[in-house]
């Protein structure tokens, strides 16, 4: 009994160091550090978003994290409304290839247009909210 419980304690103590950080957690870690990272497949060289253990294109498990350029184009846009308030929900095509859902902010939600060039930043959509990848239109200065 004693031996068993000792070894059990040791296993538990070792666990955190051995914990495998999956792509989901890794992506969130990058976000909390203020950076937006994508994966790129070592095999077929395509970029992958959202983060996965295997490449959805070729099936390879060899994916490498790379910083995203942040440059994207609006693919579609919408304005959800409730109780007098409204905001933007868009799909953007990242320069690297993948598409993602986001909000385009710093512009009236109705003024977001398909084809609009946008750039990523890490922000939140509510006070003390989790960090998210948001986009804003590229101004004259940025481009």
């Amino acid at each position: 009994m004693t031996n068993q419980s000792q070894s059990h304690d040791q296993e538990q103590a070792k666990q955190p160091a051995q914990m495998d950080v999956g792509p989901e957690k890794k992506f969130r870690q990058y976000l909390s550090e203020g950076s937006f990272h994508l994966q790129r497949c070592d095999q077929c060289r395509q970029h992958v978003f959202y983060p996965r253990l295997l490449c959805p294109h070729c099936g390879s498990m060899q994916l490498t994290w790379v910083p995203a350029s942040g440059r994207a184009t609006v693919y579609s846009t919408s304005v959800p409304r409730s109780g007098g308030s409204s905001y933007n929900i868009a799909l953007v095509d990242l320069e690297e290839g993948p598409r993602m859902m986001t909000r385009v902010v710093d512009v009236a939600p109705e003024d977001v247009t398909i084809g609009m060039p946008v750039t990523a930043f890490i922000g939140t959509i509510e006070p003390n909210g989790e960090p998210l990848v948001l986009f804003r239109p590229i101004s004259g200065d940025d481009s």
Partner: protein
Amino acid sequence: MNHSLRGSCAVAGIGLTDFGDLPGRSALENTAEAVHSALTDAGIHKSEVDALFTSNFPDTFAALHLAEYLGVQPHVLDDTNIGGAVYVSQLQHAAAAIQAGLCNVAVIAMGSNTRSKLKQQGIIDGPRELFPYEDEYRPKAPMNAYALAAARHMHQYGTTREHLAEIAVAARAWAQLNPRAIRRTPLSIAEVMAAPMVCDPLSAMDCCLIADAGAAVVLVSADRARDLPQSPVYLLGVGVATTHAGISQMPDLTVTASVESGKRAYDMAGLSAREVDVVSLYDAFTINTLLFLEDLGFCPKGEGGNFVSDGNIAPGGGLPVNTNGGGLSCVHPGMYGLMLIIEAVEQLRHAAGERQIPGAEIALCNGNGGHLSSQATAIFGTSSSL
């Protein structure tokens, strides 16, 4: 043309509850009433039910609960959830199981008390987990996905809100011919255009209603069906397809997986869109009807707006679509797909009353699930189509 499932099975019975507000009823009670009604219609006792297909948002043990409730011990159980397309996809599972000799009498059933639950508890039934990397932006599910598809179609093809309004108005005109339909007051393009926006570019009138209802169908072998009281409605083709779960992963927002599910169903049936007499498309939102008309070959891609104009899919138009009034005006109980099958069967039995399409021999149903995520297409025919 010679696929072994073509014409191997037939719908022998259909059952429905009342539609709308059934505040004293549970979802399971609505399901059970519809099953009883479908078995009565088929002239089959429940002791013969050896395959049970159902699906339900809040209930993860739906098939077990329904089997126990009915007092049956099926050999084949299936409560897959791929969204509202599921019941059309279960025709594929049921027909294959009957053909393989695994079962003889398959019941596909659903029941919902979505509307009452919303009124009484403020809860809207839906999947518990939606889509990773989307939910955190708080899209207005589920209409947000459809709004994004509509916006893209408008951008690429010049489709307008008026085109979408035509679809809502056509559904209402059919509903006016269906005594069971919930929304039967006249509706004009101007009224749809003036409705409050819920998720631009969709307004409240572009969205389906929310209702309590139960529905069931009984599927048996074609041989068995010929000995039963109702005219058999034969399953000629069925196909299932998916392209994504979350809308951000849909390859092209203007092209749904019904291109593929439709092709599979047409190939099995040996038929094309030209031969279809009456069409049932899962219209949770007006844009669905437009996308599926294009993807199933009733008009070229991008021309859906023109196709639905001038009442072309309304009573008296060129193609009868959603003759029951659809999810927009007849009924939408959480997941609507089974209602598509029931309308096809009523039309092919020539029992659809005022809304009957004279001489209908071939009917097509297209179920949609999730956020345009899954598509299931079925083609039915009368005995003349065999």
